């Protein structure tokens, strides 16, 4: 396999990169120990899960599962609570994703300036990333606690009320939770954007500055277009992660008050493990996949088009 190194004719650029030995089958002993468990405990369950969405599977012994076709989906159409939860999920995911992006962009631009104390913000922005989501939720419960937390005091000193239980009030629970979502997800967005910023060629900026382009124009016409791939990738991922959020909300509000923060994953979890309706929960999962993919296709098409020209 090394002999042909000498005799090989000038090969297409692709070949030498990935070819060594006979190829395909030689790699299997290396790959299968890792891929077989993944197939059994993650690919197989996923396929079964998709299928379960077309059955009346329920928890419990001796439950006969029957294929019911689209019946679950017909039922879901009339299931107002599910759609309410879905709307809440969309409001949550879109707001958190947008605010994560906006705040992370600001911070990444600041960190890119090499300000003094920038390192402090850089370290601080990593901590929420490493924390267990359960601890993030606990931290913010301490912040929002109506008797003990400092947030109410801050709001009062700004003349914005300050005597509500922010996580317990119908009108403030979702916005309060969104702040937590932004706090928890902003770090990795910042790091990704910062890495993107550092990859932009400084000379373009210099040339534009010489031509008299101001800071704002350079941001709009150089930084943003150059960052576009990073921005599209990180916001798409953030959107998926946000709409699938579970643990943060489970501990922060558990969907309350009165279902005002009942994200779709939490709703489906309750459907499956509180009420034992496995089939319906899986059907909800399928609906979510369709809508997530639809939203992504829509987003990616509108974002990537100008770049393809």
């Amino acid at each position: 396999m090394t002999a042909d190194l000498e005799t090989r004719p000038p090969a297409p650029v692709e070949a030498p990169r990935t070819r060594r030995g006979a190829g395909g089958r030689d790699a299997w002993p290396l790959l299968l120990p890792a891929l077989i468990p993944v197939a059994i405990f993650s690919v197989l369950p996923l396929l079964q899960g998709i299928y379960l969405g077309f059955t009346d599977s329920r928890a419990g012994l001796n439950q006969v599962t029957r294929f019911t076709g689209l019946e679950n989906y017909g039922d879901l159409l009339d299931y107002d609570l599910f759609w309410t939860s879905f709307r809440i999920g969309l409001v949550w995911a879109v707001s958190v994703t947008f605010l994560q992006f906006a705040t992370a962009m600001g911070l990444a631009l600041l960190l890119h300036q090499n300000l003094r104390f920038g390192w402090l913000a850089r370290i601080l922005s990593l901590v929420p990333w490493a924390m267990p989501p359960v601890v993030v939720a606990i931290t913010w419960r301490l912040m929002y606690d109506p008797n003990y937390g400092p947030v109410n005091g801050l709001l009062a000193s700004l003349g914005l009320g300050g005597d509500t239980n922010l996580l317990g009030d119908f009108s403030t629970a979702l916005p309060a939770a969104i702040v937590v979502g932004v706090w928890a997800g902003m770090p990795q967005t910042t790091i990704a954007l910062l890495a993107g910023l550092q990859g932009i060629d400084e000379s373009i900026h210099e040339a534009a500055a010489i031509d008299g382009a101001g800071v704002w124009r350079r941001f709009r016409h150089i930084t943003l277009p150059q960052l576009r791939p990073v921005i599209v990738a990180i916001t798409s991922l953030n959107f998926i992660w946000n709409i699938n959020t579970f643990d943060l909300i489970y501990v922060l509000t558990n969907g309350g008050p009165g279902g005002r923060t009942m994200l779709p994953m939490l709703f489906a979890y309750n459907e499956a493990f509180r009420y034992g309706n496995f089939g319906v929960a899986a059907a909800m999962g399928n609906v979510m996949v369709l809508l997530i993919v639809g939203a992504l296709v829509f987003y990616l098409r509108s974002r990537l088009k100008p770049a393809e020209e």
Partner: protein
Amino acid sequence: MSVGTVTTRARVGQYAALLAYVAFLGFPLLWLVATAFKSTQEIALGASGFLPEAPTLQNFGDAIRRADLVEAGWNSLRVAVASTILTTALAMPAAYGLARFKTFLRPVTLGWVLVSQVFPTILIIVPLFLILKQFDLVNNLVGLTIVYVVFTLPFALWMLIGFVANIPRELEEAAAVDGAGRLRILVSIVFPLLRPGVVATALFAFIAAWNEFLFALVLIQDPAKVTLPLTLSRFVGAEGQVQLGALAAASLLATIPSLIFFGLIQGRLTSGLLSGAVKG
């Protein structure tokens, strides 16, 4: 920005913005730490000052003395260590195979990394629960470990492939010319050079297992087998009597391992993420 002149006013604005970010990001953390050192009475009085009036370690004692916290910590540690070892051991040869050989499994694996992000866990978790039940692995730390390995592997591979691709192929070819077999090449040339990537993968696997919540919630019901995040969430759930101080202390203790490990790898995590994204 190194370009153009920055006016003093702009500088002031930048520092004001930086201060706002530091406050937003840092204050909740400081509040968590401060709460952990406040006495129960001080917390009960409500609206106390920021710093503890009489710093105390009582909360940590309370948190640790609650036997279930220690037990949960021990469970978490075992699961995290086991899944770290397994993930790394499986990912190293597989990443090598995927990076160096032309096989249809390469696009399949990388495709799965993306697909697994889009599908909500709820779709996987119900059948997974049923499958594990057949093997008697529900309510079982071994079952939980398997699940963590399987769900950490795709990203671990994604990251490691980038590291393998950076190892010069000539080194292996030279060893092959000298008569080294494939296994020999892997063990004495590739794996040592892969060490930075392996460290990053291992720490990532540890943090992922240590922090995970949803699978543990569904798969573990026996109170003797719960992991730390589960115990913490039940701590909160016991509404009415919540001891905020002990809760904060326990949360702080639970965060320290992932924080330390994360500090060690964060640079690599980012570059691994990006290299995977670029090299696909």
